């Protein structure tokens, strides 16, 4: 066999690192959790109506923080406005900018109609909450039957637009990679679909955990109603994992049998990135939760469902990193794998944004009326202002 030795090469760097992978991860979980919780409002599956409020707040917050990663990854963040003033239809990144505006806007309208009646009901609480609610209501305090019917109709309307927008806001990130014909590992029409399916998995995983926390802190405990709903969601998650796994296997088989670059990419995923690709992404992150969720008993046990959820959340993060960064480690010229080590700045940004997003999310759940069919919030200690005269 002929050997080739390079002894002079120009150094190349990986420019899309951790921040881009995490950005894809956030938009995915936003889309996933929204689509899941729209099953009630949009698709009319009654029992999911209980969780639409929790889901939409989570989807909005994730989506508001997601683009921060992008912004901070730009070499010229101060010029981000150029994205709005110069549209380029051949660039998936250009489509994304509009989706990143439209999708959260639509979700905010949707949320407003979902919450409106509870906001009106909460006005008598007094104190900070009442002022906040009254601000959020923009004067729309009408509680007549027609107004209520209108809320329902509008929520359904915005939710229905929200679903394709959610698909698009995450699907487009798949196109960002899929459209790059230079890199065999990205260049497949499956890419947007794989991204969407893994988003359903991680979005559902994170949603289950958030839902449990919200129920616990807002209603004091998880009643049987919610427990059985969580078992249902866990069952759905099982199917999401099955489809996601099937897509990954399909992707890999075709990659393995494609061009030399494709085969080499597949080989690299198995060997070079083996622990992360096989171990973390597909083993721990996909196979183990699937095995857990296969059992009906496990789906009804909260610790088992939480374990499966956490594993999928980790697994999908690994998948985003393996694809985005791994895809750039294979060189296009020269003779060496391009190494990547996340900079301290990037790690700091990712952790910082995660903490702030968690705080904002908790704050919103704490102050917004999370009443749902079948449960009222715990009475908070009445403030003097709140006491009736």
């Amino acid at each position: 066999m002929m050997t080739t030795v390079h002894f002079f090469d120009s150094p190349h760097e990986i420019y899309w690192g951790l921040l881009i992978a995490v950005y894809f991860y956030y938009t995915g979980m936003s889309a996933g959790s929204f689509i899941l919780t729209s099953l009630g409002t949009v698709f009319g599956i009654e029992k999911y109506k209980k969780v639409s409020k929790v889901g939409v707040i989570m989807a909005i917050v994730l989506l508001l923080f997601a683009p921060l990663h992008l912004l901070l990854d730009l070499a010229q963040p101060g010029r981000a406005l150029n994205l709005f003033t110069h549209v380029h239809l051949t660039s998936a990144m250009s489509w994304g900018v509009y989706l990143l505006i439209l999708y959260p806007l639509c979700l905010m309208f949707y949320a407003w109609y979902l919450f409106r009646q509870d906001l009106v009901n909460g006005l008598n609480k007094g104190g900070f909450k009442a002022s906040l609610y009254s601000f959020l209501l923009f004067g729309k305090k009408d509680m007549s039957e027609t107004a209520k019917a209108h809320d329902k109709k509008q929520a359904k309307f915005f939710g229905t637009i929200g679903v394709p927008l959610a698909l698009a806001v995450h699907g487009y990130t798949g196109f960002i990679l899929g459209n790059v014909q230079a890199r065999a590992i990205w260049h497949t029409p499956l890419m947007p679909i794989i991204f969407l399916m893994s988003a359903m998995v991680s979005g559902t995983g994170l949603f289950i955990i958030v839902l449990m926390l919200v129920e616990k802190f807002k209603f004091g405990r998880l009643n049987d109603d919610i427990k059985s709903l969580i078992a249902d969601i866990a069952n759905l998650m099982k199917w999401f994992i099955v489809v996601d796994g099937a897509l990954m296997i399909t992707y890999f088989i075709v990659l393995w049998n494609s061009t030399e670059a494709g085969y080499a990419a597949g080989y690299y995923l198995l060997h070079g990135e083996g622990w992360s690709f096989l171990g973390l992404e597909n083993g721990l992150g996909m196979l183990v939760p699937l095995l857990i969720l296969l059992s009906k008993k496990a789906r009804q046990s909260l610790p088992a469902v939480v374990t499966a959820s956490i594993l999928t959340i980790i697994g999908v993060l690994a998948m985003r990193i393996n694809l985005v960064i791994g895809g750039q480690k294979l060189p296009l010229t020269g003779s060496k794998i391009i190494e990547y080590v996340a900079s301290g700045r990037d790690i700091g940004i990712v952790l910082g944004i995660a903490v702030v997003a968690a705080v904002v999310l908790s704050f919103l759940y704490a102050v917004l009326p999370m009443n749902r069919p079948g449960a009222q919030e715990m009475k908070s200690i009445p403030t003097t202002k709140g006491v009736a005269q």
Partner: protein
Amino acid sequence: MGKRYAMVIDLRKCVGCHACTVACKSENNVPLGVNRSWVEELETGRFPNVSRHRLPRLCNHCENPSCLNVCPVKATYQLEDGTVLVDYDRCIGCGYCIAACPYDARFINPERKTAEKCTYCHERVAVGLLPACVNTCIGGARFFGDLNDPNSEVSKLLATEAVTVSKPETNNRPQTYYIGADEKALRPNLLKIVGGEK
């Protein structure tokens, strides 16, 4: 018909001196650690049957440039004469073009903080000079000119010599033509790089 610039590199005449790399750096003020133009050198075979190859690389000023297609703000644009340029005042530094170029031709300039690559020495060409690398090449291996002019050196070479381009399968239609290039030099040996070659 307008002009269509292209480069022909006759590897039989290249001695691997890297003068082009240096000339480009000084002409275009390219910072340390990044290159608009560079020369890959490699050795193939096993002793005693060995050979050395050199492959000068630069932006191919592709006919269908993927860098241009993916740029979200149209900061990358192409002139009538085929030259692909970056508007340094508009580029947001997103790096999409770098990820999408099949030839590693681009980088973020660490000082200017925008995408950057070979410009065919646009300012020189505009006043009738040759690109710095072509001008400086000691072996006379690099040729630059207009493909639409049948009397240009590049047109004559393309008509009379067997030429190859790097990664013709990309649909980028690269416009750097090599004479006497070894296939092994034109693309990385990925299988070997990932450890899959016995």
